[in-house]
């Protein structure tokens, strides 16, 4: 069977535990399959599609066996991925969908948003004012927002105060946006964030504004979020969890199979996103970043 010697991986940003957990999952699996000296090159595209195209071209030029990518755009990569395939490179996607890949494993972002906000609705008794802190204009963010809206739409007594503020997906961004929104809206019952980084930012904002009676939910299930949720009196109550380590592992595993002519059962796998709450947090096995 073909041996795995080098893997090229390109993900969203570095310095974010989610992506470094993806990288870890993939790297560990690659080592397992290809031995300790298998070369795994991890790059960040910062959601610049052109940059990701270049990165993939460079992977092709360096003749990697497999490309594992977190697509920055659902369609734009098609031509370059075709080039990669033509060069005999296995191409698998994780975390997000793209045309021209042989296999995709991703969390169901819409479901993640839906689950998170259903729990949120339940916690506030299906009525009250809710703020949706949005992020940069990319598909995943839209899905998580839309999923949440789906859930909240079922409850006529829930009012969405704001859903169009970009918190840049970062703590500091969410901290500032939330501060401002809290200033604007005297009565807020819950805040939904598109990821845990933002949720922590919102949490800090709520604390500093000395506001009470507000709960937070989000998406990701990152270690920091979970440790916060575990705290007895924390207002951060839930986060629908992804499992980036598994995602990375699975992508490489399946990719290796494809390399050796073993077609996957299904080419698109949507990972479940269980909601982590105070109840089940203790049993949850969290992420393992690099």
């Amino acid at each position, binding site marked *: 069977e073909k041996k795995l010697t080098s893997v090229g991986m390109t993900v969203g940003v570095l310095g*974010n535990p989610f992506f470094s957990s993806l990288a870890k999952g993939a790297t560990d699996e690659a080592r397992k399959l290809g031995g300790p000296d298998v070369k795994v090159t991890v790059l960040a595209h910062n959601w610049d599609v052109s940059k990701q195209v270049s990165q993939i071209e460079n992977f092709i030029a360096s003749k990697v066996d497999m490309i594992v990518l977190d697509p920055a755009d659902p369609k734009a990569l098609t031509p370059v991925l075709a080039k990669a395939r033509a060069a005999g490179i296995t191409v698998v996607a994780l975390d997000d969908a793209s045309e021209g890949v042989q296999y995709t494993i991703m969390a169901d972002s819409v479901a993640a948003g839906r689950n998170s906000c259903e729990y949120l609705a339940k916690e506030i008794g299906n009525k009250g004012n809710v703020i949706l802190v949005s992020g940069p204009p990319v598909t995943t963010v839209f899905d998580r927002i839309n999923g949440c809206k789906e859930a909240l739409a079922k409850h006529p007594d829930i009012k969405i105060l704001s859903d169009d503020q970009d918190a840049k997906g970062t703590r500091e961004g969410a901290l500032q946006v939330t501060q401002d929104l809290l200033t*604007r809206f005297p009565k807020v019952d819950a805040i939904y964030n598109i990821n845990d980084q933002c949720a922590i930012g919102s949490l800090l904002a709520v604390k500093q504004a000395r506001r009470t009676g507000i709960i937070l939910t989000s998406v990701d299930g990152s270690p920091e979020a979970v440790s916060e949720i575990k705290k007895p009196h924390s207002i951060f109550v839930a986060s629908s969890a992804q499992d980036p380590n598994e995602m990375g592992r699975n992508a490489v595993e399946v990719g290796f199979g494809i390399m050796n002519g073993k077609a996957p059962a299904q080419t698109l796998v949507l990972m479940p996103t269980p909601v982590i709450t105070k109840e089940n947090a203790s049993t949850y096995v969290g992420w393992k970043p690099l």
Partner: protein
Amino acid sequence: MTSNSTNVAATGGVVPPNSTQKVALLASLGMLPVLVVLYIGFYGAMYLHDPGVASNFISQSNTINILQQVSINMVLAIGMTFVILTGGIDLSVGAMLAFSAVVGMIVATPGAVTGSLLNTLPPSLALAAFLGSGLLMGLLNGAVIAFLDFSPFITTLATMTTIRGLAYLVVNGSNVLNTDITFGWIGNGVMQTLFDRQTGFDIPWLVVIAAIVAVASWFILRRTVLGGHIYAVGGNAQAARLTGINVSLVLVFSYAACGMFSGLAGAMTAARLLSANGNLGVGYELDAIAAVVLGGTRLTGGVGSVLGTVIGALIIGVMSNGLTILGVSSFWQYVVKGLVILAAVFLDRMRQRRG
């Protein structure tokens, strides 16, 4: 003219604040009205749309809120002012912020990064680590620019990238968390003011720190010989050298100060977020420069003031706070922010025309 000026010469008289200041003072005052107009403008817009919101906007808590939000950019911008006054520029402030933030947090968090030398230091040294790492980076920038005579732009563009990479490396691109750091008060604590008991009016330490930095910098620039030399080097490096000023030293000092303030900003950020990672402060350099230039400091050096920078930073802060409170969507915020900056510059021009 000649005649009466002769009389003036005869009477001699005291030195009124010298021109550097005058220009800078004018320029900064020039922006003060703009800030006021902006503030009132927002209030009016909100009032029309919902008086309640408007009163929230001018509320004490939101005012402190704004001050707190600008404090970090302000500290960066003041450091940048030193550099720009010499006629240089420092694009690496955002990266230095991230670097010092992660270094400081590692020191503050035993076992944060297994096997990292930094973790062998006692957590009590965390604050020193923040400032020290920033200072070190600043010194490197300054040394390269002063002694190798590299262009500040390309040099700091390069170090921006390198330092950013180092920031990722020291934490392997992950996140250092520590909710019980000893210096958390910097980020989220407040200074109890005298009348606290009655009014419950306290000032966040972030704001206090920014204020201290501003006053200290004003003092250095306006009252010390070194400050005078910074203006001289920026105004005419050739002449400065011929009057025996140690130009290299002045440059190194300015970049070092900028680095140290970036380190301080790193501490402020880490303390505020109770965490640090390599992505902090991406793109902050442009905000800082914008504040400096809005404040009337000349990019070619020699003219400018800390006061101006403070006002410039406030303009930017009021803008994003106001727009969000007004409920302007983030897309429109981009559009409006740019236009407001242009309007600000324009108003300033008008004022100077008349004056």
